[in-house]
Structures are given as structure tokens and as C-alpha cells.
């Protein structure tokens, strides 16, 4: 069973299609780099797959659970949205403890995992209120919150935003470990070297449609780019990306 499977997944706002007929499959233990220009529909796709937004048409399962079943879905996923989903008036430790409790995690596991992850991400201010945090510290807390229950699938929307190089390196190491342990990582970012380094497969979204899906090396080769950035720019600045892709060998 694939970790993520969508079939004609569509989300329309009135007559505007944010995501149109999305068909994709992400296997367990894989990192899926989800790329696309601003407004392509990446965040909407993430919200659809995490159950936050209801699809207009089509179907999707994450860890075998229908995305319309938000209650069941939650146990299998972790989500790092672009804005850290944190209560500003709590401390990081209180936040992580509260959400772990809400998830129904064993209190002994929480006592073990939370301090370990806080230490790993060097969150020294874990007992200060989150409202006093920098963007990077909030992002670290958000990441820890998303992985503390060791989910089957982790969705990350611009996870390196605001992170210092050390923290970004830690995050990459953690994501690699998660993948190795069988977790599927669905990663959306504009920091292309991160995707290039981590992703097993890259999906390219444009105007709500999946235009390309391949491993990074093949994608670069097909689009005549030395780097992923070359390939991305080549594709997304074309006047008709769909035509450009259809011409792929």
C-alpha cells in the first residue's frame, strides 16, 4: 500500500481550479519533493492531503486512510504548514506536551521523546513563551510537533524557512532518518538544493496540474538543466509549460 495515493484529486474555488485532476503516488520510505511556482496549488494540495480542505472531486488516501476522514487521518500524519501551528501563549514544552496528549500518546513516551527532540533541535528556550521566539525557533517547534508521534507520513511546507544552517542540517538529517525508518516525507519548498539532496521523486505542479514527475536526475536531464534550479526555471518560464513537457523525450 502506497503512503499517499490520489486519483483525480481536484479542488475548485468557484470557477477557479486550484488543483485539477491530480494523480500521484508516494511510496512508504520515500521523500517526495513537491515543486511549483507561487500559486501553483502546492499548499492547497497539502491541505487536501492532510484533511484540512475538502476535495471538490476525486479521491485520496494517506496511509490508507481516506483524506475525508480527518479524525482517523490525524494519527498517521504530521504537518508542518508554512505558518507554524503554535499557541503563542504557551511555551514550546507545554505546546508539544499538549498536542502529544491530544494525540493520545503514552505520557511516558512523551516524557522521553519531547526532551530528546528539543535537545536535538537545540531549542534552549523551550520554557519561554512561543511569542518570544524567532521565526526559526517557531519552525523548529513546529517540526518537532509534527514528528514527535513518529507518523507514517510527514507533510512539510517550506520547512527550512527561517532555520539557521545548523538547524537546517539537523532537519535534513531527521528527514533522512524518518525516510529510512519507513516514513513518507512530502516536502514542498522553494529551496531547490534541499529537494535535490533529499528527494527520491520530484513532482512539478503548475496551475494546479502535475506536469512532471520523475527522479531529480532524470528531470534535470530531460529539461537540459545542470541543476534543479535550471530545470525549474526552464520549465516555469516557458510560455506554455504543458507543450514544453509534452515535447520531453
Amino acid at each position, binding site marked *: 500500500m502506497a503512503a499517499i495515493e490520489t486519483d483525480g484529486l481536484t479542488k475548485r474555488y468557484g470557477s477557479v481550479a486550484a488543483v485539477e485532476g491530480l494523480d500521484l503516488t508516494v511510496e512508504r520510505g520515500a521523500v517526495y519533493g513537491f515543486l511549483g511556482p507561487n500559486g501553483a496549488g502546492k499548499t492547497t494540495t497539502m491541505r487536501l492531503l492532510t484533511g484540512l480542505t475538502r476535495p471538490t472531486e476525486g479521491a485520496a488516501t494517506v496511509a490508507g486512510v481516506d483524506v475525508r476522514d480527518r479524525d482517523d487521518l490525524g494519527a498517521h*500524519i504530521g*504537518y508542518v504548514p508554512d505558518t507554524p501551528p503554535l*499557541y503563542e501563549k504557551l511555551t514550546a*514544552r507545554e505546546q508539544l506536551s*499538549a498536542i502529544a496528549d491530544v494525540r493520545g500518546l503514552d505520557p511516558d513516551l512523551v516524557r522521553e521523546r519531547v526532551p530528546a527532540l528539543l535537545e536535538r533541535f537545540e531549542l534552549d528556550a523551550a520554557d519561554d513563551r512561543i511569542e518570544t521566539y524567532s521565526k526559526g525557533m517557531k519552525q523548529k517547534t513546529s517540526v518537532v510537533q509534527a514528528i514527535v508521534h513518529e507518523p507514517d507520513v510527514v507533510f512539510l511546507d517550506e520547512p527550512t524557512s527561517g532555520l539557521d544552517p545548523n538547524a537546517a542540517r539537523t532537519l535534513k538529517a531527521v528527514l533522512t532518518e524518518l525516510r529510512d525508518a519507513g516514513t513518507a516525507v512530502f516536502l514542498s519548498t522553494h529551496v531547490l538544493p534541499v529537494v535535490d539532496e533529499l528527494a527520491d521523486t520530484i513532482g512539478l505542479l503548475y496551475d494546479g496540474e502535475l506536469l512532471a514527475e520523475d527522479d531529480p536526475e532524470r528531470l534535470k536531464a530531460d529539461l537540459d538543466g545542470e541543476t534543479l534550479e535550471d530545470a525549474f526555471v526552464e520549465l516555469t518560464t516557458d510560455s506554455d509549460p504543458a507543450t514544453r513537457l509534452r515535447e520531453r523525450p
Partner: protein
Amino acid sequence: MSGGRPAVVVTRTALRQTYRKVRESTRMTALFLAIPTFFAVQLSGAVGPGAYDVGRQFAGGGGEAAAERIRTAALSGLVLLSLMGVLGAAGGNSEFKDRYVAFLTATSTRAVAVGSVARQTAVWTALFWPAAFAAAVAFAIGAEKPLAAVSLVGGSLWLFVVAGVVTAPLGFAARLVLDGYDLSKNARFGLGVCMLGAFYLVLFTREYVGEVLSATPLSWAGDLLLVTVPGVGADPALAAGFLAGTLGLVGLSLVVTVYLAEAVWYGDRARGREETGDGSIPELDDPVREVLASVVPRPTAALVVLTWRRAKRTPKMLWYVYPAVFVGLVMGEQLVYSGPFSTAMYPPVVALSGSLAAGSGFTLNPLGTEGDALPGLLTSGVSSETVVRSKALAVVLPGLPLVVGATLGVALGVSPLPLFVAAVGGFALALVTLAPLLSLALGVHYPPDSEGLLGGSVEIPNKSASVIYTLGMVAVATPGFGSVGVFALSGRLDPATLVVGVGVTALVATAVSLWAYRHAVAELDAYSVE
């Protein structure tokens, strides 16, 4: 940009944003139309005695008495406007830095400060001045003196502008003092409640306030208002003096506002930190949560404690709780102290206002009060039932013993008849259980971005949610409240009337509570971030 243009641009942009926000929301549009209409109808005399009747009094030869009423109303109105202005400025303009950050990095602080004051003044003038306008026109029609409307309309408009601008620096000053002393959030809120208390005090003693101020230059406001009303002895020189004096005050206020805005916006703001006392790291275990988790599922206990903790650290979240308490005070004053009812009316007043207060906090906007954390909560796998139950429990656990206990205590004090005490106890129990569920059922219809900003990043439920919730609670409470009222008015306890009245309220409250719970759960289940 140079001169006054940046301030004009800031004002125009902020007003445009406010206008579009109002226009694009049916509820906001309705509120912006309903408030001025409500006050206009009251003040003009379209319903009950009002300005039109004062005009008739004028036309019937009672010119001096009519003028005196207008002068007194102007003075007490000016004080009320000033109090409202200080409250608005303290919570609004003085914390507007975040909203104006694009302007603050593009133009001078002076322009932004002046623009923000102009915006605030324009908004509240648009909200409340139409009532004064309607009253002025109604007076002129009643008095059959069209010219009278000129100074009443123009003068009242000027009073709104003056009150708006002059109170702006007081708001900034209040903010500066609060931050300077690093008062706790609860202490700050206590000060706000005191201001609200002062507002009600002036409202009830407006006649006396008007008399006291009539001996000061503020009374010249009456001359400004009455300068085109013939035969009432308004002195044009005093009117001009008031105009010139307040013009100077407006200019001075703007200068002080700019100075204080710089101090408030760029000063170091105290920010909350958890104090562990001995520097040790707090344990993850929370005794309250552990106790709760022994009687309810752990996720429910965690959410209840989380809600309490956040409310304790952001008491402003409970903004609508405090007016509900004041509503109780006003009801007590109007019905018993100044009204025809006996003290037997106090227990249902305590029950109704206490229940109203209980449901007026975070349950009025269960999605919005989650803030940025909402996606985290919704993707945590917690069920909608758990969310709704935990929010309701967070209200009922402290609210029920407080409201029912206070109601029973007051009932025993005023009329220890067993049937009466049992009836008002049941009345309180039904209402305080209904309160959080009704507000939740309503609140889930408000998307997270529909709340109002109460200074800084503190958001409170939409005003219309509070209004609809209050009306719903009052509708359910009416039979029981009325049946106690019959006893409190006649002094004779009719068991049948009391039992039927309270019984109807209890039955309806139970039915609505059940429906509200199911509805809130279903709406939350179907919730989709759009």
C-alpha cells in the same frame, strides 16, 4: 511624498480596507447599519420620547427648557464619547504598529500616527454620528425651525471629531503607562473594566454630570449646537470660543499623539515569559490535567487545560464576558434598584447574566481562538466531539458552580422559599449548561478570520456572534425570567406560574443544548479550510 499627503494616504488606505471588510461581510454590513439605525430611532423619537418631542416642546413655547435639555445632553454625551474614545484608543490605535508596518517603513511616524487617528475618528463617527444627525433633524422638524438643524448637525459632527482626536493621546498614554509598569495582563484588563464601569456610571448619572459641567467652558458646546436655534439665548461668541478652543485642542492632541506614538511603537515592550521561580525546567506533567484525565479521556483533559492556560495568559480573549457581567448590573439597577421589582428578581438576573458571561468567551469562536495553531489541532487526529466537549467543559467546570452557587446564594438571601430557591436553581443550571453549547453551535459558523482584532494580535469573536448568542440566550430565558418577574412584581408566589415558566425554559434549554452539541460537532466535522 511631503506635507500632509502621507497621512491622507494612510487614512484613505486604512479606511478603504475597513470599508471593504465591512462591505464584503453581510454580518458586518448589517451591524454597521443596525447600530446607527438603533440609536437614530431611539434618539430621534421615532420610538418613545426623543428629539422630536423636545422639538414639539420648543414649538409649544418651552424653548428654554428644550434648550436646557440639549445643553445637558451635549455635555453628558461629550463625556460618554470621551470615555468610549479612550477605551477605543487604548485598545486600538495605540497598538496599530503591526497593521501599519508597511507605512512606518515608508513614511514618517507623524503621518502614520495622524492617519491612524483620522481612521479611528472616521469609523466611529460613521457608526454613531448618524444618530445625532437624525436627532438634530427630528428636533428641527418637531420645532418647525429648519434652520435649527444647521448648528445641531454641524456642531454634533464637530463634537464627534473632537472626542475622537482628543482621546487618541490618552489611549497612547494609557498604553505607555501599562507597558512601563509591566502590569500583568489581568491587571491591564482590570483597568479596562474600571473604564467600562466609569462609562456606565456616567451613563446612569448623565443628568448630574451635565449639571456639574455646565459651570465649565465645556458648556459652550451647547452654544455651538444651539447657535442657529432661534430664541434660546445661544451666544455666538461662546460658540466661536468653543470652536477655537477645541480646534487648538485637536492640534495639540495630534502633536502629543505623534510624540506618544513614537514612544509606544518603538519602545521596548514587555513580553511574557514563563517564570519557574527557581530556574528549574517545568515538568511536562500538569497536576490539573492529570486529575481531569482520571475522569475524562486524556485528549479532552489536555484540551481543557490548554484552553484555561491560554485564557489565563490572554484574558482579553474573554472580552465579551465582562460586558455580560455589566448587563447583570444594569438589569439589577433598572429592574430592582430603580424599577418596580422586588429583590426576588436578583437571582434570575444573576443566573442570566452569569450564564451569558460564561458562554461569551472562547466558545463564541472556537476556530478563530485557535489562531495559527488550528491546522495543528485539526491534523492531530482529535475528534470533533472531543474538541466540542473540551471547549464546553472548559466553560462549565468553573462556570456551573459559580453561576448556580451565586444564584442559590442570592435566592436564599432574598426569599428562602424552597420552591423559589429550587426554581431559580434549576433556571441557572439550565442556562449555564446551554450557554457554552449554544455559543459553540453559533461560533463554528464563523471562520477563523472573522474575528475582531482587540489591539496587538489579540483577537476576539465577531461582534455579531456575541449579539446573536445573547439574543438566543435571552429568548430561551424569557419564560423562566418572566415567571419569577410575576412573583417579584406582585409579591405573591404562584407555584403554577413559577413551575411552568421555569419548566419551559429548562425544557427548551435542554432541547437546544442537545441540538447545539450535535450541530457544533457536525459543523466541525465538515469544516474545510477554504
